[in-house]
């Protein structure tokens, strides 16, 4: 009962986007995929969700993703895209209900309001989606996705949230709230796979981190093991220093520039 990818490869034209990537995510954990721009994070996520047909094999809860149709997949996993442009003037609640209808909880209409409240948009249901700010729209789509797989565990099987940069256009308060939601979902037995850019947020909320570079998997493991000066430097091509706060084991990362992490 996990997400497992073996030997994932994808070539577009003469460019190799993913090269023999192995990836694992377990239910009960938040697994973050990090890496520089163009390293293949989103492409890997698209392969994991079944959106993209790639070489190799991806399994979701033990069954190959390629062997399932879209309807069956939608009952077990929901996907938040990096950006969703919605045509036509739907109201916020109508957008959220699209997720509700796709998942196993279509007969629980009250979940739409609860999902909106969970992302801090309680009372926004009657507004038009195009009138929300970018960050609010992102949270509206998160509510839609949450609604689709509301119960982290259903019939003894974990459900999965795949999030592509879920906090990209959010302020720090909402970043923490959204990552908290993801962690709670995992703590209740669901699985979360998130593509992330913010390494410090990742260190705070992810149980496991997958670090990618140029279409390859550089390292996978708990944040303290992956966020080392050497691995981060190799991935991002700049000097980064992983520090540990005195009060806990969570690392935080500072760039070694402008004297910010100057060692005497």
């Amino acid at each position, binding site marked *: 009962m996990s997400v497992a990818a073996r030997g994932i490869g994808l070539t577009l034209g003469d460019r190799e986007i993913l090269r023999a990537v192995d990836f694992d995510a377990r239910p009960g954990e938040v697994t973050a995929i990090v890496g520089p721009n163009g390293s293949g994070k989103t492409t890997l996520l698209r392969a994991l969700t079944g959106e993209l047909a790639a070489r190799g094999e991806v399994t979701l809860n033990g069954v190959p993703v390629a062997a399932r149709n879209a309807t069956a997949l939608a009952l077990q996993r929901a996907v938040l895209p990096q950006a969703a442009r919605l045509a036509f003037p739907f*109201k916020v*609640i109508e957008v959220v209900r699209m*997720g509700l209808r796709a998942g196993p909880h279509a007969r629980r209409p009250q979940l739409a309001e609860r999902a909106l409240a969970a992302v801090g948009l309680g009372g926004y249901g009657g507004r038009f989606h195009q009138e929300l700010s970018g960050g609010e729209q992102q949270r509206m789509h998160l509510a839609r996705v949450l609604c689709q797989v509301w119960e982290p565990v259903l019939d003894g099987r974990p459900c999965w949230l795949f999030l592509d940069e879920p906090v990209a256009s959010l302020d720090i308060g909402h970043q923490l709230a959204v990552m908290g939601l993801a962690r709670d979902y995992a703590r209740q037995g669901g699985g979360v796979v998130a593509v992330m850019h913010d390494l410090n947020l990742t260190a705070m909320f992810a149980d496991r981190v997958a670090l990618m570079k140029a279409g390859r998997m550089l390292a996978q493991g708990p944040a303290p093991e992956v966020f080392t000066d050497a691995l981060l430097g190799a991935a991002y091509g700049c000097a980064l220093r992983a520090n540990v706060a005195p009060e806990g084991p969570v690392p935080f990362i500072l760039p070694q520039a402008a004297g910010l992490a100057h060692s005497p």
Partner: protein
Amino acid sequence: MSAAREATGRGAGRGACGDRLEGARRAHLWLALVLLGSCVASLSIGASGTSAAAALFKLASGEALSLTERVVLFDIRLPRTLMGLLVGAALAVSGAVMQGLFRNPLADPGIVGVSAGAGLGAIAAIVLGGMLPVALQGAVGPYLVPVAAFAGSWASVVLLYVVATRGGHTSVATMLLAGIALGALTGAVSGLMVYASDDQQLRDLTFWQMGSLGGATWQKIAVAGPVILLALAGAVLLGHALNGLALGEAAAMHLGIPVQRAKRLAILAVAAATGTAVAVSGGIGFIGIVVPHLLRLATGPDHGPLLINAALLGGALLLWADVAARVVIAPAELPIGIVTAVIGAPVFLWILLRRRGEFGL
């Protein structure tokens, strides 16, 4: 813009959110009543002065209808009314499905060249049909023009989709420009066909190109009716899929929608409905853009109820356009395409003006 903002102020609570979908469903009944009234008007208004209501009253009281009344009502007006209903529904639903498929409210079979493609098929069938062996002509006779029009509209939708859509997103500018190119190309080939046609064919083509319900016969209804009804039934099944596609193809797939199957069904339904409508009534434009737009303003964009409402309102609107075409310069008749263009073209410009920032035009 203003309608959207006003509605926002009203609908912040939960009840108001649910109301829009319920309202759209309640509209089925109201629009069905409007359609019924339109049918009575269409049957009652005309050059001869025979009234459907009076005739029904006569029938109910056991009185026999005169020969003139029977001919006017059952051989002339009833097929015309039924044809108007079918064609109006076909064009409005085709517009709504295309707009859902292309993810923008400007996609209309007339504007983006699909009707022109169907027209080319129909013209080719009228002009070249005579070259078929006589035995074959007898066998395929009434079906040749509709089938050719269907082929023409299908090829046009597919071409348009391939040209204007990339990665599940449609460029509005590319779609409109491709529509212009498609219209020009089909227009040129159609012109060539007209040039090569004989006198009888020319008469058929002239009637046909202007767009009219005047040629409605029971035989045409027997051919077009089942195809249009089947296409409408297929289209109505697409409500959930088109809602999902409003988020883009990838998001629709994540919502469990079999995207490729839904797209194929949408294209087939549009091609069959538009192709058949064009084959029997010629070039009637703008129904496909006006009707879905009005309905979205009134009851929201949910394609489930929208597609049913579009069929009802499309039928009613075309019947009234036909009544107008019959009475404005009575006893002569205006081509109905002129009436729908006079109503529809300003609506098209209005949508364009309201949303030009959004389209980058």
